[in-house]
């Protein structure tokens, strides 16, 4: 019998031009035994939430380098909750100024990982919340 696998959507909202960081994280989560759905560059919040719904993921990881996080993240959280997906845990990575982090966490982002974050730490944190009872 198969055990339950943690399913993670790794997405890049907005107009960023490169996705190396997102790929590094996708690969690290794969090596940590998770199923990672990778959707590529330039996703709208609507596309991301639709993919999260169809793929029934436990976790969404967003990578934003453009500085548009204070617009994109609340929109994605709102759409998730409109779809009844408020149990999906949202992580953020990329270039996020220190002062925005508390605000983002207040909105519901579980954790923000900046440049140089250790991929094993990321995997550990995601595994922890992916298996916690709130995430179904």
């Amino acid at each position, binding site marked *: 019998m198969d055990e339950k*696998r943690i399913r993670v959507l790794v997405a890049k909202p907005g107009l960023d031009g490169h996705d190396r960081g997102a790929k590094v994280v996708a690969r690290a989560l794969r*090596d940590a035994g998770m*199923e*990672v759905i990778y959707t590529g560059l330039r996703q709208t919040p609507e*596309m991301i939430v639709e993919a999260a*719904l169809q793929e*029934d993921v436990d976790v969404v990881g967003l990578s934003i380098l453009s500085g548009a996080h204070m617009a994109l993240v609340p929109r994605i959280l709102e759409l998730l909750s409109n779809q009844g*997906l408020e149990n999906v845990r949202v992580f953020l990575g990329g270039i996020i100024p220190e002062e925005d982090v508390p605000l983002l966490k207040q909105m519901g982002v579980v954790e923000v990982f900046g440049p140089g974050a250790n991929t094993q730490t990321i995997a550990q944190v995601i595994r922890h919340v992916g298996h916690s009872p709130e995430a179904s």
Partner: protein
Amino acid sequence: MTDAGRTAEAILAGDRRTLARVITWIENQEPASRPVLSALYAHTGRAHLVGVTGSPGSGKSTLVNEFAKLIRLRGGTVGIVAVDPTSPFSGGAVLGDRIRMRDLAGDAGVFIRSMASRGSLGGLARTTGEVIKVLDAAGFGTVIVETVGAGQSEVEIARTAHTTVVVQAPGMGDDIQVIKAGILEVADVLVVNKADRPGADSAVKALQMMQRLGRDGRPAMSLHRRWYDSQPRAMEWAQALLPDLNSVDEWEPPVLQTVAISGEGVEEVLDAIRSHWDYLQRSGELKFREAARIERELDLLLREKLMAKLLNRTRGGEFESMLGRLLEREIDPYTAAELLVHRGADCG
């Protein structure tokens, strides 16, 4: 109504979140999925199941994206199951087929689900067949299954789909490759994608040559027809409806060229896929294919159930002590298996 009944009703009514959730149950083989599948079964059997297989990087996902766009233009709905491999080391997977399917976002007539193969080797996951059933019951007119990037022996898709499309790209080897056994044998439609690249013409010629070789002399029986012959109980049933399938001309798989990235040639491939579906229905071969598939499915389920029962009954030392005797060469494995089966049956 039971919980499972309510869940099934929600799927039939088009609730996409419930659909996604039940697919997860199926993937994880959670007991809750069983009664839902039972309740949905009567609503299956309506969709045209199309398999798309071929080597990694041949353009399967891009083609599937183009097929789905065209089916939507023609007024149909599409469910897509895209299978990618699970790492044998970590058990994890990166499922990247959605990257090529972004044109389909925001369309309620399309549902895309990525599946990891989870250790299964035939090009599909063990539970892909069940996931297809749920999409079929949910009312998608066409269900497209994209396999793991397949090499030569991942032929499971041909026993699952009604129409199997095998995608090749130019430059993948000489014409000996095409007469080897494997996925080319199961194609109902052959596609040479990336036809704008050098070598496309010779790839097409090689495939056509393979087909002509097969037709010289005695008409070659397709893999499918041989498969039907190997499922005698199902065939007895199908033959009552259509006495002699061999009197019906076999489908000849067309060899087509596409440039999926620009959509070139895709319309012709979709037309060929539909022609094959018409052929299956008109000729009566669909009945044989369904019968063979169902017999195999029941067979596998019985094996699983009986095996679980037997292991359960011979637990508590008997199985284990047999292992010990085998290690000591006191008994041979053939006799051991017979003894265990007898004992399993006795205490029932």
